[in-house]
Structure formats: structure tokens, C-alpha cells
């Protein structure tokens, strides 16, 4: 269906700046297959319209707001420059999928965990925030979420405590591995307890 292909193209113009530039500079033929000539012209014209760039900025701002709001410790740990680089890379591979902030933040956190960044604290901090989000995820019938297990390389009281207070972590910290399990209780609080190391596998 041609209209569906056109809408797919317009959505891509808004979410994929590289493709937008390609369509803008190459011309209507770059807009893709399955389109009428008028739809190709429309996409080409939109690609060069400053209003479409503003639309793209609004979409990015909305997306970024979700990540900044729900992953504050990750932001503090990585700093804005590295976070922006990682967000750009993530978005270049993953278009927006959901209206909900939690979905976007979870997907970005999962992506960060796959990245194996050199920061010695990143895995545990991201895993912690991701687990907290998982505990907050809406579930049918108000069912309680499954317990979340996080493997820490460093003392979580120090790592999470300093980041929560807005302080930067030292370059190095003595390793003190532990595995903790977080459980959401019926009254909405999170209970932490030590877990067996194999639970975090």
C-alpha cells in the first residue's frame, strides 16, 4: 500500500537524520520504492523543510527526556558527553517504539549493558537502574514483579550513595563483589537481601 510506504518514509525522515540528509541531497528517487511520484516529491520536499528538522528535534527531546528522567544515576556516572554519544548510537540503530518512558529507558539500559563500556562501574549502575524500572513496570492484575538480581563489583552503598548525592565516583574503588536481590513488596517498598552468586547469571 503506497500510503503506508509514504508514512513509513515520513516517520523515517523524522527519526533518522542520515536518511533525511540522503533524501534531501539526492532527490525524490532516494525516497524509496512503493511510492507514487507525488509521494516521492512530498518526502523530498519535507526532507529539506526546516519545519521537519524542528519536528525531529521535538521527537528527540521527548525521547531523551525519558532516558534522563528514568536513568539519573547512569547519567551522573557517564556524564552528558558520553551519554549523548551512547544515546545517538542507540537511536541510530533503534527508532522510537513506544509512548512510554519506561520502555525507552529499559531498551537503552539493555543496550548499554551489551556495550561493555570501559567505565568500571557502568554494569552495576545500569543494572541497578534497570532492575528498579523492572520493579515499577505495570503488570496486569497488579501482580508483583519477579525479584531482580544485581551483581555488584563494588560496595553498592558507596557507588549508589555517591551518585545519588550527585557526587562523582573515584577512578578506582576497592572491589567488594556481592549479589543482591530486590523484591517489590505489596506496600510498594523495595526489599534488598543478599543472593547466591549464581542467581545473577
Amino acid at each position, binding site marked *: 500500500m503506497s500510503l503506508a510506504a*509514504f*508514512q513509513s518514509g515520513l516517520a523515517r525522515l523524522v527519526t533518522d537524520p542520515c536518511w533525511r540528509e540522503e533524501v534531501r541531497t539526492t532527490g525524490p528517487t532516494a525516497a524509496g520504492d512503493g511510492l507514487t511520484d507525488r509521494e516521492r516529491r*512530498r518526502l523530498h520536499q519535507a526532507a529539506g523543510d*526546516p519545519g521537519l528538522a524542528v519536528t525531529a528535534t*521535538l521527537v528527540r527531546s*521527548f525521547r531523551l527526556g525519558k532516558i534522563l528522567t528514568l536513568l539519573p544515576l547512569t547519567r551522573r556516572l557517564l556524564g552528558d558527553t558520553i551519554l549523548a554519544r551512547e544515546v545517538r548510537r542507540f537511536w541510530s540503530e533503534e527508532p522510537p*517504539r513506544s*509512548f*512510554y518512558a519506561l520502555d525507552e529507558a529499559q531498551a537503552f539500559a539493555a543496550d548499554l549493558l551489551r556495550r561493555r563500556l570501559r567505565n568500571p562501574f557502568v554494569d552495576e549502575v545500569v543494572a541497578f537502574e534497570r532492575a528498579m524500572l523492572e520493579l515499577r513496570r505495570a503488570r496486569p492484575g*497488579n501482580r508483583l514483579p519477579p525479584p531482580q538480581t544485581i551483581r555488584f563489583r563494588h560496595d553498592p552503598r558507596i557507588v549508589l550513595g555517591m551518585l545519588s548525592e550527585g557526587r562523582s565516583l573515584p577512578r578506582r574503588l576497592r572491589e567488594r563483589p556481592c549479589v543482591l536481590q530486590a523484591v517489590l513488596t505489596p506496600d510498594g517498598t523495595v526489599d534488598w537481601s543478599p543472593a547466591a552468586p549464581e542467581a545473577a547469571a
Partner: protein
Amino acid sequence: MPLPEAGRLVDTPAAPQEAALPVPKLGVGLGYQAQLRPFLEKHGDEFDFLEVVPEVVWNDLGPGRRTRYVPDPEATSFLEQQSRVRTVIPHSIGLSIGSAHRFDREHVAQMALWHDWLRFPWHSDHLAFHLAEHQDEDEGEINVNLTLPLPLDQETLELVAARVAEVRRAVPAPFLLENNVSYFRLADEEYDEARFLNALHRDSGCGLLLDLHNVYVNERNLGIDGGAFIDRLDLEAVVELHVAGGMEMDGFYLDAHSGPVLEPVWRMLADVLPRCPNLGGVVFELFGSWYEPMGEDALRRQLDRMKELWARHQPPPVRRRA
């Protein structure tokens, strides 16, 4: 009646082709945002009805799930309380009625459940799309999270009109579509916006939600003549009006819902209010994060001015019995 959780298909008699107007005169409404709850509780006499975006009150787990829509218990409870003293109108952002690749009938069924719950006299969504197929078929769907413009062509008119008919069969209340705001134009459209909206009303029986701030934003950014647009519009089809404030960014004026209504929009409201015989209400929209910078007094002033204008040009609002 508590909000049902699970989606279900609704089997209701077919709606008549003509629009089910008129609706009750509700008066001045305020858009629900969680940050506004203290205001809504403290200043219940400042507005006549509450409008709510359902998508902020439920979590959508995605199409095809056995239980797709999971209500937020706090927000649901708040709306339940509000609905006992005033009408609550849903203004959805999730249907994406213009998406050509699929029509979200589960969303429609969910709105029917909401009607069972809230018994709203009308409901609305946007004449736009935000869901589209990913360019690679196996990559699923993109949700742009912003209303994108539909080409105002005959093909779009037929697509949307057929879907409006489905919505009207499923949800036994008038259904309105809102004029879109956009920061760019599509070339070579077969209809201008007013003619398209009039044709959609005529062919589908949908009512119109005329967002005056959207008109103003389009005037500022696209250079349309807002007054001429309104003059061409069939104002008998208008059931609801929206007003809001915005902000500047990169040389554009944004539909940011970020503060007080600007004077040109007040002038539009004063012009349009007496010309809409089937009007049910006018709503002030404010994003929750802007409530604190704007302040309680400024919000009250917006609502007071809206009430003054309403009293001058429309019959007194009907009151819901507690």
C-alpha cells in the same frame, strides 16, 4: 463502576450516519495532568469538566496482549472521584487513526470500555498518525510520539472516514477529531485543511475538535490565514475547542502547552465561541511540568477568562448531579 482491565470486543448497534449532535453544554474544562491534582482538588469550582488523555492513565503493553491496557491505580482512582462530581472527557493520543498499515481496533474497544466506565458525552482523538511500519518489514513498527500530518487527499479521507464509522459503531458517543498542528507542509494536497475537515464531518459523521492554538501555531509557522481557515470551516460540526500557550524554538513557535494563552488566541476564542451552535466545551491545555512555573493564580486567571467568554456567548453549563 470500576474501570475494567481487560480489553474486549464490543458489539453495539451501528451508529447513524449523521453526527450525534448536539451534546450537553459542559462549559469550561481543564486537561488532566498528574501535577495538576492539587489544583484540581483545591479549585474544583474553577472549571466545569475534566479532560483526560487516557494514555497517561493506563499502560499499554502492546497489541495482541491478553491484557493490553493496565490502569494506573492512582490516576484511575482520582478520575473515579472526579467523575462523581463532574464529567470526564477522554481526549486520546493513541489511536493513530490515519496510519495506513493497520487500524488499532483494540484501542477502539478500550475506549468502549471507558465509555462503560465514565459515560462521557463525547470523546476525541487527533487527525494525524504517529504509528508507521519500519522500513524493514521484520523490524516492526515505529512510534514517532508526535502527531504527523496526513496528506489531505481523497485516499486519506476515505481511509479515515471508514475508521471513524468503526469508532462510532463501537463507542456510543460522538467522536471528534482534532485539527492537526504541524511544522511543515506536504506538497500538492488535494484538499485544503478546512475543506478536508468539512468533508470528513460530512462523510463520516465525526464532530470536530477545533484547537485554536494549533490554528495559531500553523499561522505562525506555515503562514496559513487562521481567520480564513475558521471562516471556511463548518462551525456547526465543532463540539469542542482547545486553547493553550506555547514557546519559541529555533525560529519556530511550538505547540508546547507551556503557559498562558496568547492574546491572538483569546481573540480567536472570542470570535469563534458565538459561532459554534453545537459546542460542548472549551478546554485549557497545560503540560504538567509547566504548572509550577506558571503558578496557581495564572492558571485560575486563564480559567476565569474562559468562563467569562463562555458566559457571554454560550448557554450556562449543565451540571452533573453528584
